[in-house]
């Protein structure tokens, strides 16, 4: 990123000087209405002042990012789509809100002086040289100060990342153990039991073949049927471990195969680069399979669709249907399992399913070569 010119930096300084009093008023109002929230009149005021504070701080973040040459993300907790009171509760619990207030009270006054200094240096033309060489340094100092208050530090971010990873690792380990138990049980109750039966039938046939060849022939036919059933069991287990069509054709081909097996028409649209990492393909395949199975079981839909696309190292999969809607993640539909599985890949799941439909399940998973990221959120700058 190119460093901004002294002119541009001075523009920032002007904006900052004018925004400072606004921010100050905003914080005072926010604090007052925070107290007044006890008697409810403060609630609408908070819904007004805090977003304004967010906008002012976001402006400063953007200016700091431009001055420093690297992103300064806001790191606020997400509140989109929450009702007003719930939003206020999240804001109150979000440390970033308090950092922003602290910034207005401590950093902004110091910054105000710095920005003013840049303007003062420019105004009398004699100090123009000082301004030309000084402004970048002064504004750099101001930007660093803002960044320190308005964005999380490196170690803080790492701590959070460790927390997320610990959680998702525990979920992954649990999931893997449960899968192994399921496979063991399936083999034990299915193919293994059938092979035992096969051995017995063959033994019996061996004993009777001299005395009663007809009975032996019947036993042999039975043995043959048992091998077919055992193979069927093994195929079922294999599909649950790693579906062969996924190995053969990759994610797109395997999703097409899933769509073909649905009782309703399901269209598949895909624009993916080439093969993705194998573990990722497998996780996304099982996620799509679960979503489609839900459509088949509960949605009463006429049509379904799956779109797969990858933009900027982010794989986005949307599974939709025109059924009756009302799908909930905690409705015991296996969607919670999908979300857990995707979390091992830093993936997320969003469900939009108003009563009466349509239902849209959006899965987003980072798929780039840099997928083990150290920043859990993308920046705003």
């Amino acid at each position, binding site marked *: 990123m190119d460093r901004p010119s002294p002119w541009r930096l001075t523009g920032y300084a002007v904006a900052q000087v004018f925004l400072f009093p606004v921010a100050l008023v905003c914080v005072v109002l926010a604090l007052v209405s925070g107290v007044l929230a006890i008697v409810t009149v403060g609630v609408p005021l908070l819904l007004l002042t805090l977003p304004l504070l967010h906008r002012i701080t976001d402006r400063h973040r953007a200016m700091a990012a431009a001055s420093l040459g690297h992103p300064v993300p806001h790191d606020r907790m997400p509140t989109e789509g929450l009702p007003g009171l719930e939003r206020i509760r999240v804001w109150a619990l979000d440390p970033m809100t308090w950092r922003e207030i602290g910034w207005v009270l401590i950093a902004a006054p110091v910054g105000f002086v710095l920005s003013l200094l840049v303007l003062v240096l420019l105004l009398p033309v004699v100090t123009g040289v000082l301004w030309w060489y000084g402004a970048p340094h002064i504004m750099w100092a101001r930007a660093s100060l803002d960044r320190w208050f308005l964005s999380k530090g490196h170690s803080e971010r790492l701590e959070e990342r460790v927390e997320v990873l610990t959680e998702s690792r525990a979920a992954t380990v649990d999931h893997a153990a449960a899968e192994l138990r399921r496979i063991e049980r399936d083999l034990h109750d299915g193919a293994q039991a059938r092979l035992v039966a096969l051995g017995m039938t063959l033994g019996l046939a061996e004993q009777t073949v001299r005395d009663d060849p007809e009975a032996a022939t019947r036993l042999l036919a039975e043995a*043959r049927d048992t091998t*077919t059933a055992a193979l069927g069991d093994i*195929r079922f287990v*294999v599909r649950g471990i790693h579906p*062969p*069509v996924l190995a*053969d054709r990759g994610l797109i081909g395997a999703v097409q195969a899933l769509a*073909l*097996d649905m009782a309703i*028409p399901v269209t598949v649209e895909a624009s993916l680069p080439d093969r993705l990492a194998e573990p990722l393909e497998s996780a996304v395949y099982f996620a799509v399979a679960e979503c489609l199975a839900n459509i088949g079981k509960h949605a009463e839909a006429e049509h379904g669709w799956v779109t797969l696309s990858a933009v900027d190292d982010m794989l986005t999969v949307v599974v939709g249907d025109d059924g009756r809607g009302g799908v909930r993640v905690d409705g015991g539909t296996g969607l919670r399992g999908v979300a857990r599985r995707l979390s091992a890949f830093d993936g997320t799941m969003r469900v939009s399913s108003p009563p009466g439909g349509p239902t849209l399940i959006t899965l987003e998973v980072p798929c780039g070569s840099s997928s083990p990221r150290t920043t859990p959120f993308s920046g705003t700058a």
Partner: protein
Amino acid sequence: MRLVVAEDNALLRDGLIRLLEAHDIEVAAAVDNAVELDRALAEADVDGAVLDVRMPPTHTDEGLRAAVRARAARPGLPVLVLSQYVEQLYARELLASGEGAVGYLLKDRVANVAEFVDGVRRVVAGGTVIDPEVIAAIMAGQRHQPIDRLTPREREVLALMAEGRSNAAIAARLFVTEKAVTKHTNSIFTKLDLPIAADDNRRVLAVLAWLQSA
């Protein structure tokens, strides 16, 4: 009858050869990878191939690809594809050329030796043999309205027709007379608005095309 056998597992390859030769079917070449399969199929005096979907070098679906490739070079070359699992998607790809002389079966079906050898002969004679599991999946996914008008027995007959069985075979399977089967098939063709085809193979292809057009 001279066939090429392609299967990378030595045990299964030897079993297949033994089974075919015991039924007077000559094995012209037995190969264990797709490259040699291409070479063997290019020879003029082979009547067809029995091959595994998954083979070296990549152990994915080269058997299937080799089959489609060979049939593009020699249209109508009989090919029977065996696999540990079946997919509707692959059946569609094999049938796409619309020529017949195609088989797609689970490997398990080899256990029923008489039926398997019969399947091989039918494919080499230009017929179509599709695994019941594929047909079941296609039938389960049927969204055509007219299929609701079929009686349960007619649906059974439709599935067996789609697998590529003759009227005589269907009659034997359902323990009814051939005449009764003919009555069912005529009724099915009328209800589904399909042209009645005298030739068995064209009948199978028409039924499959209709089933897959959903």
